[in-house]
């Protein structure tokens, strides 16, 4: 029996602006449990804006459309409520937080999210055990825990730290924005394997990426091409390979031709 998971995320006609400039112009996307989606597209197409809108960044204004996350109106939830409900954004540019150790931050975030999900919180010793397995998953040195969050981290270390947070918080939907940038090939393999191991039939991953190489490790069920604030083409994993060799222009041309045809038919 083929099993289609529950719909986790349903985006319909989403429009959003930054400082009054429209960036998202009618975006549609459906993600079900158990799936991996990838959004690809040229710079400035709105990929990161989409991720930030989903996470609730205050600089982005939603101007229209609807997003339902696990059945609820996402925009009724504050950013922290979205996180507790199981939405996770791995930042393209993780923020440095000097003076807060990774260990303290991870434990506070974990316990906050656990508490909101009606589960038991962990004391520092218990959390220490819990975090060890997550560190191993990402081949991270425990010394990372004693450093301030992202402060002085290399680009690759920051990305690994984002996935560590994902591993700790066990989100239902993880959106990873350029998770592969700044990673050398070994680190890429480790991070990708870590993400893959965190997959279950009940959760889903949305990868936002410029390059196909990450998708060799985390094989997507759907690849979407974004341009000018919309998804203009959706295909399977082979679409990523085709984009890698042919670029994006042909997709845009095809989309424009399709619209022209549609318009002439009308």
């Amino acid at each position, binding site marked *: 029996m083929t099993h289609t998971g529950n719909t986790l995320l349903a985006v319909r006609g989403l429009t959003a602006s930054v400082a009054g400039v429209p960036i998202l112009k009618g975006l549609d996307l459906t993600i079900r449990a158990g799936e991996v989606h990838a959004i690809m597209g040229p710079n400035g197409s709105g990929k990161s804006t989409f991720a930030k809108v989903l996470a609730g960044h205050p600089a982005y204004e939603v101007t229209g459309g609807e997003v339902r996350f696990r059945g609820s109106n996402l925009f009724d939830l504050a*950013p922290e409520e979205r996180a507790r409900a199981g939405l996770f954004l791995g930042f393209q540019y993780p923020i440095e937080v000097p*003076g807060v150790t990774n260990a303290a931050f991870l434990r506070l975030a974990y316990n906050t999210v656990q508490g909101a999900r009606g589960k038991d919180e962990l004391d520092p010793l218990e959390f220490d055990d819990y975090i060890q397995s997550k560190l191993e998953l990402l081949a991270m040195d425990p010394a990372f825990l004693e450093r301030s969050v992202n402060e002085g981290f290399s680009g690759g270390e920051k990305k690994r730290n984002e996935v560590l947070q994902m591993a700790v918080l066990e989100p239902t939907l993880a959106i990873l924005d350029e998770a592969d940038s700044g990673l050398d090939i070994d680190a890429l393999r480790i991070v990708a394997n870590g993400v893959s191991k965190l997959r279950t039939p009940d959760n889903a991953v949305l990868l936002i990426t410029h390059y196909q190489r990450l998708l060799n490790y985390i094989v997507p069920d759907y690849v979407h091409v974004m341009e000018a604030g919309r998804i203009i083409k959706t295909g399977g994993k082979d679409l990523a390979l085709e984009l890698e060799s042919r670029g994006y222009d042909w997709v845009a041309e095809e989309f424009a031709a399709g619209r022209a045809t549609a318009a002439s038919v009308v």
Partner: protein
Amino acid sequence: MSQAAEQGYLEQLLRGQASLPASPRVWLNGLRADALERANALAVPSTRDEDWRFTDLSPLYRTVLPPAARRDAVEPGLLVDFALTEAGPRLVFVDGHYVPALSDPLIDAGVTVSGLAEALEQGQDGAVPEHLGRYADFHADAFAAVNTAWLHDAAVITLARDRVLARPVHVLFVSTQPGVSSTPRVLMVAQTGSGCTLVEDYVALHEDAYLTNAVSEIALGPSARLRHVRLQRESKAAYHIAACAVRLQRDAQFESVSVTLGGRISRYSLNVTHAGEGGECRIDGLALIDGRQLADTHSTLDHTRPDGRSRQLHKCIVGGAAHAVFNGKIFVREGAQRTDSSQHSRNLLLTDKAHVDTKPQLEIFADDVKCAHGATVGQLDADQVFYLKSRGLSEGAARDLLTFAFAAEVVERIPVPSLARRLEQTVVHQTKGKQT
């Protein structure tokens, strides 16, 4: 306030000074007499003085705070909370007077940690007269002149060549009497290659008004190293006016963390002179104030010789309707080539009524130097708040954590772990949920 009333104020602080018993040391009597003469000639500072523009002492001048009498009978149990788990030698001063019964001095080959009288008895006369009163200039500073005129007790720490103390020295100044003034004094002399950690700690057993008028002098010989912690946790109604003068000889290292928590009005003037080549200092400060407190830090780093290095980070967390003042001067004298200096003032305002005046100031007379400075005043960083919220933290929890972190950057530099932990608790207690 009239000039005459201000002058009367200094006389009041000096009342009874004439009956101070003469010291058998002629040089000490001479020092006091010089200082008394200056105190009689000087006017107290007012906001008309550039160095006191933002710090109005007229509430102090309106308060009668006669010199504190000696009071030896302090229940030791009352001091338990101030004990450092790591501390080695400890000197306790009650209302400015040294109390041997509460202290744990150390007099050993080449090491003296004791009151002034005991230090002089130990034949350390050589070091003490050479340095006492030499760095904290009282010729233009009325409060330092009053302090020096009263010089009878002092915390004296002398280290002979290459002597290094493993455990921190704790000098505890306890205020027990409301409505009085005291004149704490510290002298630290470290010879070539010696070093220690010194915790200078000002506390109170009550919440009323009093004046602490403190002077510290620190002389570091070639390659000597001092890690200095200065903790001002006076009552919130207290007046605290303090000067610290530091002189570094060749390759000496001075690392200082000063934390300001108490005081209705407090002023800390720190003066560091790089008198030898290659000296290094790191000066960090944190003022954590609220209510109607005013905390003023003035520092001067004077590079007079080549290859000196200085790092300064001063932070203020200002809540309520409190007011923080920072003025940081850095001089790089002609000939102080290859000086490497940086100074940063970072200020976090928790409320709309909180206020900061900050002024980093560089004066460079040499041409081959590296100097950086900057100041920021503001609220918490919105991107950091969002990042923490995106991990499930509430707005309040995110703000509390970031405020804590802002303070922790300085608190973590305190080389006495038990003190750092305790201060972290204080930060949490004082800032949690205090943002508007």
